[in-house]
């Protein structure tokens, strides 16, 4: 018994996902939220790569690569929006983005 069972990789993945999720729920700085979203995507990637190894096919790797691109795209757009929104504001706080509610 030398290797690490896939279940452990999955456990790490789940833990990462939860951390990311908690991050999105407790932080208010949009940049922090975007960082936390990266954690979510990484968690998925860990799971994908783990399953890829378990099944011995490459699909998971491809999926993970695609996710990275998607992450990049989201970050680019997200950062663009953050900059645009907060160009005129003092603080970065998503709680202040609540002119629309109810």
């Amino acid at each position, binding site marked *: 018994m030398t290797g690490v069972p896939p279940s452990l990789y999955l456990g790490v993945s789940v833990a990462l996902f939860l951390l990311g999720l908690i991050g999105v729920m407790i932080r208010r700085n949009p940049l922090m*939220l975007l960082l936390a979203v990266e954690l979510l995507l990484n968690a998925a990637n860990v799971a994908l790569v783990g399953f890829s190894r378990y099944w011995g096919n490459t699909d998971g790797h491809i999926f993970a690569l695609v996710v990275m691109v998607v992450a990049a795209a989201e970050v680019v757009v997200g950062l663009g929006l953050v900059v645009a929104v907060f160009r005129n504001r003092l603080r970065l706080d998503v709680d202040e983005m609540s002119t629309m509610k109810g």
Partner: protein
Amino acid sequence: METNLGWIVLALPLAGALILSLWPGEPPKAVTRAVGVGSVFLAFVLTAVVFAGMLGDDPSSRSHVDGLWEWITVGDLRVDLAIQIDPLSVLMMLVITGVGFLIHLYSTEYMAHSAGYRRFFAEMNFFVFSMLLLVQAANFVFLIVGWAFVGLASYLLIGFDYDRPAAVAAAKKAFVINVIGDVGMVIAAWLIMREVGSLDYGAVLSAAPGAFGDSGVADAVALLLFVGAAAKSAQVPLHTWLPDAMEGPTPVSALIHAATMVTAGVYLVVRTHALYEIAPVAGDVVAVVGGVTLLMAATIAVAQVDIKRVLAWSTVSQIGYMIMGAGLGAYAGAMFHFLTHAFFKALLFLAAGIVIHALAGEQSMDRMGGLNRYLRFAYFAIAVGCLAIAGIPGLSGFFSKDEILAVALEAGTLGIVLWVMGTVAAALTAFYMFRLLFRTFHATEPEGGYAHTPHPSGWAMNVPVAILAVLAAIGGWLQVPGGWHAISDWLAPVLADVPEPLEATTRGEWITSLVTSGLALVAIGAAWKIFGRDDTRRRALARRFAGPRPVLEEAYLFDEVYEQTVVQPGRDLADAMLTGVEPRGVQGIVVAAATTVRDAAVGMRALQTGLVRTYVFAVAAGAVVVAVVIALVR
């Protein structure tokens, strides 16, 4: 032939009513008179023709039924628009059209100053049509229709002066109580349908003995029918409308509320006697109700001051005799009394109408007295009527009333009790009728004079009164104990199926005649002593009876009790529903539902914070919920 004429008789007053009501604009009075009186007169003539034709027929083939068209067929039940011409209906028709014609004629003068001249005759004609329909109907449906139509006509005519609230209220009361009666009859009709499957007199009455068996159904039917009869004929406890109905013009009171409509109950019992024959309990109930009514009404009449109200209570009392007779099985006697009563009561009303007309509408006897100097004709007419109703031998009331009482003597213990009540009431009748006569025409002029200088009446009023006076005087000779029985014989075909007709014995007739006429004479004497000359004795008596007097004046407080126990609770209940149940219950549920949804919406609005974190939390929580659901389902 008979039925064809019957249809025409029926159509004539209807046509009169239609012509008068649809006449564009205001028709000339002459036209109104011609149509209004003429239609009834023609109807009377044709009825007489029918009657004459029927006399020529064999007694067993005097009943004719004719349907005009199929009125309705529901399920297996077929009802035709049909009339039945037989001795009973012809007798009724004769009275209705005959007395009706006289009263119409009388009205041409009596109502001459009324703005609603045309309306009056239209409604009167409509009444005659309805009454004819009632007596000619060949099945229960059209009986009920006629029954309701006379009620409607009565309603219209009581409320003829519709700008007087009292008249309007009286009309409404009469109508509503009559509807109660209608409901009783309607339920009876359902019961008949249920048991026999038909509503035709022929089928029902011939099937009655077998169809109803002895399950008490016959009693139920008979009693339910009697609810209608009691309402229409003002029998206790549904009698309270009739005195109020005196708000109508006097000819109306004479025709509808004395001579014809109110006796419809008697007609009904006689018409459906086959049911009462197999419903002993119902028969007894009818007789007792009649007995109670006649005595009670007689006592009330003693204390009335309004001249028409005295007559009204007298009517109630006299119908009580008829009902009692019919309940005991003296059908011919009841019809006989109906006939004579129609004469003398119409006479009394019309003659009282002359007095009222002469005093420009005054009806209180307190404002009368000593009128015999001015209105001699009316005085004699009323005197004849009083003698007739009091049962003075030789006049009509004597024969007919005594026949009923004599029959009662043969009807066991109950009959004897009823006989005593009837006899006492007969004495009271003589008393209060002569009280009326004396207070109006004798005694002294009222303090402060008359409301209007009395003026004598014209021929149109006098002729009918005169004819009726003659009829009231001699009408009783149609049926003389131990002599001839024209009425009984005439009705024999209709009553042929009565297995053991109750008949008076000669002994009973003698006893009754002697007792009642003796008592009547005593009562007249008493009335003369009290009311004949001046007010002193009357006032002394009034003081002495100050306690019970209001009870009698208020007719044993029936109205008060009904108001407190039926009308007011109903009104309260309705108000509670309108102001309580309706907004808070029926509408309230809807409002509550709407409010709940709205509150939920408000709550949801609060949840929608506009904060991104909340939204992410919701997504995560939703995922958990979905996961839990899946886990639960697995």
